[in-house]
């Protein structure tokens, strides 16, 4: 081929790059490995991830749930995972119809009217919701209420720093663990209240009450959900009056994978459809009246609107949205409910058992779904480290990770993946490691 193009060598392909900018040596990256060597290398690394091999009660924004075997099989079909964004609808109907189903499922679960084709994850979806609230209301104050995931707060903070938005915080009620509720900062400059429910401490918020307060001053209510399985049991944010609902969709059939890729869900009211960030798929028909699906309302997007776009997002989380879609359709109406109930029941059992341990307490009284804060008699960081190394149990998240003023607190999450025996082992471990 080189010859046919009249070139003497591969180097001649690069004459348009000035010589002094060309690398005169080979890269000093890894030498080529065979499949055997590569797999052996990654297997060795994986073995040192002890956390992946233990019974675990870690939640806090990423959850261990059962993933039906068919999910991975289906997303591994070449036609799905090696396709691109469905710009050419005639040869992308598989992806497009799946996204349309995804949007529908997100609407059904959140109780909202429209949903987009996905965001990067829950945290960036929340940040985009805040930006959207500013666009919709043309107001600039946003109140983050109560216990929102600290990393989500960090992400919002980054996103709003140059957007002229003032982010203020409404504290947590130290008794209930819920939003304190005075909301003195709420006024007619407020674009939105942001609340997470169940919140970072596992407590379910009174979303309906917050919606009422927000609406009273013309602000929006943004609800953020990190544990999407809760939607199987808890009243939908839409039914409570939320204006924008964002969620981390990882619980819907997505492996933990050290934090990503996950998928952000984003839903809102129909009237705000043209303010939504990201892609939307809509129904369309061809000349012969056959139904199909297309990317639509693209005039919101960066490739058309450029700096005036509703967001800069282009690539989203297509394949993960597909995985969630398959998960939700497989579990279906009764499965989603059942998983959520198992989580709630097992969590209730775990809380009951832990409360019985001497010198342990559960500081917050708010109702919970599948997470709760435990207060032990010693530093949680040390206690959990010992639980890990001596008992092979990851007992939860030491809250000092984010809150240095909570040295003895840790967050425990229980899902359908934790058997009663696992819970009993956790309790036994806590008991024996804190014996005087």
């Amino acid at each position, binding site marked *: 081929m080189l010859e046919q*193009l009249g070139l003497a060598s591969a180097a001649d392909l690069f004459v348009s790059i000035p010589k002094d900018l060309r*690398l005169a040596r080979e890269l*000093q990256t890894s030498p*080529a490995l065979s499949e055997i060597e*590569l797999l052996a*290398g*990654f297997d060795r690394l*994986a073995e*040192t991830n*002890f956390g*992946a091999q233990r019974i*675990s009660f*870690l939640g806090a*924004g990423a959850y261990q749930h059962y993933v039906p075997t068919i999910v*991975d099989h*289906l997303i591994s079909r*070449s036609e*799905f*995972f090696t*396709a691109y*964004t469905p710009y*050419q609808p*005639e*040869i*992308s109907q598989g992806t497009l*119809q799946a996204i*349309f189903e995804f*949007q*529908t499922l997100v609407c059904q679960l959140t109780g909202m*009217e429209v949903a987009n084709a996905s965001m*990067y994850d829950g*945290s960036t979806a929340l940040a985009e919701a805040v930006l959207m609230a500013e666009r919709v209301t043309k107001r600039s104050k946003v109140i983050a209420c109560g216990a929102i995931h600290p*990393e989500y707060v960090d992400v919002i903070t980054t996103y709003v*720093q140059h957007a002229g938005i003032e982010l203020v915080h409404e504290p947590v009620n130290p008794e209930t663990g819920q939003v304190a509720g005075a909301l003195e900062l709420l006024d007619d400059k407020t674009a939105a209240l942001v609340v997470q429910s169940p919140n970072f401490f596992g407590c*379910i918020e009174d979303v309906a009450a917050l919606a009422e307060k927000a609406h009273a001053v013309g602000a929006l209510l943004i609800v953020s959900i990190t544990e999407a399985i809760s*939607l199987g049991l808890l*009243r939908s944010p839409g039914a409570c009056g939320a204006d924008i609902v964002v969620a981390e969709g990882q619980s819907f059939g997505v492996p933990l994978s*050290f*934090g*990503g890729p996950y998928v952000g869900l984003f839903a809102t009211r129909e009237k705000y459809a043209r303010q939504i960030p990201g892609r939307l798929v*809509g129904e369309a*028909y*061809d000349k*012969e009246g056959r139904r199909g699906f297309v990317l*639509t309302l693209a005039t919101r*997007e*960066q*490739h058309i609107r*450029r700096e005036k776009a509703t967001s*800069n997002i282009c*690539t989203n989380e297509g*394949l993960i949205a597909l995985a969630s879609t398959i998960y*939700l*359709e*497989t579990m279906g*109406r009764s499965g989603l409910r059942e998983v959520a109930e198992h989580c709630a029941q*097992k969590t209730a059992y775990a809380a009951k058992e832990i409360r019985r341990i001497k010198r342990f307490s559960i500081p917050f009284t708010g109702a919970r*779904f599948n997470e709760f804060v435990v207060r032990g008699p010693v530093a949680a960081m040390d206690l959990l*480290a010992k639980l890990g190394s001596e008992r092979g149990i990851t007992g939860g998240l030491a809250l000092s990770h984010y809150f240095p003023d909570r040295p003895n607190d840790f967050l425990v999450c229980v899902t359908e993946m934790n058997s009663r025996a696992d*819970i009993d082992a956790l309790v036994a471990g806590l008991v024996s490691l804190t014996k005087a």
Partner: protein
Amino acid sequence: MKSNITKVTSHINPNEALIFERSQTGRVGYRLPALDVDEEPIATIVPQQYLRDDDLVGLPEVSEVDVIRHFVRMSTWNYSIDQGMYPLGSCTMKYNSRLNEKVARIPGFANLHPLTEVENAQGALAVIYQLQQELAEITGLPGISLQPAAGAHGEMTGVMVIRSFIDARDGEEASAKRRTMLIPDSAHGTNPASAHLSGFSVKTIRSTAEGLTDLEHLRELCAGGDVAGLMLTNPNTLGLFERNIKEICQIVHDAGGLVYMDGANMNALVGIARPGDMGVDVIHLNLHKTFSTPHGGGGPGCGPCCCSKELEPFLPVPRVVQIDEQFKLDFNYPQSIGRVKAFFGNYGMMLRALAYIQTHGYDGLREATEAAVLNARYIANGLVSDYEKPFNDPPMHEVVFTDKRQSRKGVHTLDIAKRLIDYGFHPMTIYFPLIVQGAMLIEPTESVGRQELDQFIEAMRSIAQEAIENPELVLSAPHDTRIGRLDEAAAARKPVLRWKPKQAATAS
């Protein structure tokens, strides 16, 4: 040719309904273990007012085999890299190795929680660290953050880094006067959108007739003293290497600005030239392009932000560092722009990208670049007789043509693209970059052999011929797909964005 069948309307594959239309009350496709704790009345656990009362009506009720058939059938309506050449310019649709998929599914990674204490996640952190090292070497830029989830996210990160750097360098007040980001008219839409997100206003630089950045215009714009930086794609979106890149960087630097390079086109450079050696300050990479992590029908991606030593303190936290053989998370970067995403970014993509780099080796990486450029050059050569090639410079990894000659017969880029579908190819990128009228941006990547390149060239030539002899045939394409061209205007006018049950739909 198909004979005249009158009754074939119920072919299952072409007519797979929405799952909601297939749902039948009472069907299930899952089974959970029996609950092994004593069941409490649910309202004693969660107060009634917080409980869902809609019984999840509307969610599908289907069996496992229903779900399998649903998605297998739908999948057959997609075109994919695994079926053939996918020459979508700017998107680098290269082969996605099955091995990398296997690596990402190793249970020790797939089951690892992101908040695992670092001592129990050393292998996972080692992967991040190694990938950082490899990307630093590949780009010539030592500061790497893998947190951004896609290219646009990496852009936002990089532009915020520039802004924070200037704030720190010049002080808030002086910095407040530098709020202009220069962006060529050929740039991808994410560039201005990302600049806007970071609080910059955008000024557009003209391209020359040659398809390169107009230096005169650049100098002019830089003269104002308000320039924070330039966002430049290189090779640019026309597939041309900005050969004045060093001078460009000099001009911007002299004006007190920084240079951001959109690295979406790194597939033309890996192993051949490094942005860091060109004077660029910060770039993003698309691991889902250059480093072969699968596009997945539109993501997930991973858009690392890579920068010079000077800018490194401003990268997002936490950073993964190595101290005495141990990998740690370092949050202590007071100048950091902050976090751009929860946890560490799209970790699964990092595993795949590292596997890509390691299976290729340094020589394999360079050879992939050479093959990608060679293939584009071969196509350029093969099509120049039949299509208008607006720029003379030899293209790098992608080449732009236009519909100028065909449009005389009323056949436009869109029609050519649709007709290509009938020939079994995914179309090229069309109408991008915006500055080229009727642009067709063709990027074959290194993952096609000569046979397929020849088939593609033949198909394109055949379409050129058809445009002359039988334009109607091209205008009405595609003919061989499950559905024809959809009425997108109608779809946008009255958007239907979700399924609703029949009654409800008519009621509302």
